[in-house]
């Protein structure tokens, strides 16, 4: 069976959940091979998790330079492997860094790039959800290899034991003249909450929250549900919550099992980032707020009394 490459998305020695989704999706196309690009010793920490999710091979491209250059180490390693194994597909997480790797790899290997897929079938037919979920589009690469950017939270992760045989990849030395050098890396730390795009439940606040201090009402409910916290553009622009938590057209796209919108009116801009959520609950004072048009369950009322009551109910059930 053909080898399908999956670029492992990892931070601080931990595998991001999306990697497991990609290994699950890769099994439909062939035999998954995980590709680890990182500093020496990285693969050893990740190998067990990768094997438990179906990686038959783990290609190890380790070097000190792996963190010193922007996307080039990943592109170099994947391009080397594409040439060697001619995979039907290479799957890469659809974050900012991953898309950059994917786009560059597609150029370098002359492969079709399917960006932001939420589904792929055994015939390499991919499904995109575009314009904030207003359309689904089916497309395929006409080249031997398809480069696929995979949107987190699209499919259920399935565990399956794989051999996880490690194999070292010799990657050519970085070409300084064509590469961008990186220093002072500081990853955004989200604290103890799950990452916004990977979370199963998202609780988001909007203009109706009223102030930065009041956002603790949103956070408290989120923590009772082990949820990520999101914010509308209006809330971010008003300085209530940091930019990286913005959900919408100009922020992140999320697709959790449950999305709870507190004090969010639901402008097109916001809906574009969350309307593919499986279940949507909305609380808003304004009975005419457009968020109610897409909410599975809506309550017209004051979020400052409703949200604490809901928090209490959730805590009661989980204790």
């Amino acid at each position, binding site marked *: 069976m053909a080898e399908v490459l999956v670029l492992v998305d990892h*931070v601080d020695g931990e595998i991001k959940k999306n990697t497991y989704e990609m290994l699950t999706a890769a099994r439909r196309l062939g035999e998954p091979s995980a590709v680890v690009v990182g500093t020496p010793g990285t693969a050893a920490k990740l190998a067990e998790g990768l094997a438990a999710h179906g990686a038959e091979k783990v290609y190890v491209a380790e070097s000190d330079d792996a963190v010193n250059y*922007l*996307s080039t180490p990943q592109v170099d390693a994947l391009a080397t492997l594409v040439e060697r194994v001619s995979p039907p597909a290479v799957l890469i997480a659809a*974050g*900012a*860094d991953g*898309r*950059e790797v994917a*786009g*560059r790899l597609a*150029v*370098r290997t*002359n*492969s*079709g*790039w*399917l*960006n932001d897929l939420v589904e792929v079938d055994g015939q390499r037919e991919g499904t995109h959800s575009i314009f904030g*979920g207003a*359309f689904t589009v089916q*497309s*395929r*690469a*006409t080249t031997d290899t398809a480069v696929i950017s995979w949107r987190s939270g699209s499919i259920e992760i399935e565990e399956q034991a794989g051999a996880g045989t490690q194999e070292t990849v010799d990657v050519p030395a970085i070409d300084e003249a*064509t*590469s*961008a*050098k*990186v*220093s*002072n*890396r*500081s*990853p*955004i730390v989200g604290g103890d909450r799950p990452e916004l795009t990977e979370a199963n439940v998202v609780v988001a606040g909007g203009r109706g929250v009223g102030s930065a201090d009041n956002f603790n009402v949103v956070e408290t409910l989120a923590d009772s549900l082990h949820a990520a916290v999101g914010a509308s553009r209006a809330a971010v622009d008003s300085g209530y919550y940091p930019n*990286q938590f913005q959900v919408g*057209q*100009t922020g992140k796209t999320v697709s959790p099992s*449950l999305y*709870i919108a507190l004090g969010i009116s639901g402008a*097109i*801009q916001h809906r*574009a980032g969350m309307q593919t959520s499986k*279940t*949507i609950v909305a*609380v808003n004072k304004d009975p005419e707020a457009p968020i109610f*048009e*897409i909410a*599975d369950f*809506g*309550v*017209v*009322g004051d979020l400052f*009394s*409703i949200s604490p*009551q*809901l*928090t*209490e*109910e959730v805590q009661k059930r989980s204790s």
Partner: protein
Amino acid sequence: MNIVVLIKQVPDTWSERTLSDADKTLDRASSDAVLDEINERAVEEALKIKESGDAEVTVLTVGPDRATDAIRKALSMGADKAVHVNDEAIHGSDAVTTARILAKAIGTVDDVQLVLAGNEATDGRSGAMAGMLGEVLGWPSLTHANALTVENGTASVKRETDEGTCDVTAALPAVVSVGEKINEPRYPSFKGIMAAKKKPVNAIGISDLGLDANEVGLAGSLVQVDSFAPRPPKSGGQKVEDEGDGGSKIAEFLVGQKLI
């Protein structure tokens, strides 16, 4: 120093966007078009470099006739001249093909040291054009810049994405994509608007770039769109008035859905 700024006209995100039935490409005629907000920041950054030293700023766009509006806006902000690649054959080009067309078009401007672009257009959202273009040109790409300095043949940026921040440096020539926080673009002055009308716009087709019709557009693309469908609109479900039990009602609903 010669700087090229990539600009792109996109459908206004506040208007309804759709796809064309005929060839499954973005229906650009049916929605309002605007100069992508992020491109104005790229233009602004180029103008700042021009003002602090000696640079000529060329704006480059690939698009249909009405992309002229985006060009005029950039010229009225203060860019010196424009290249407009306008050719029916380009319609439907995928990202890889677009990167190749842009690279060829950059080649029509002499001695380019810096290419500036927005980090993400609001329509295609590939968010990777700067990196792809760098790959085609064989230049380094410095992406998602929050701050940019260019001196002594080196570009340095503060990079910021959802994943974190870092400093990035590379030798010129280079491609830089700018993020939302890099600057506040200026408004064109009346004088700027008048002056823009006299600035040269080099309108060219793909044959001027040494490309063949079958290398671009739907024919040259490495991706084929098979079908598309509007997602069935999500309909609202239950809506209740809070009578002091709103939180409990939500909890009951979530229990019913097995979500808690």
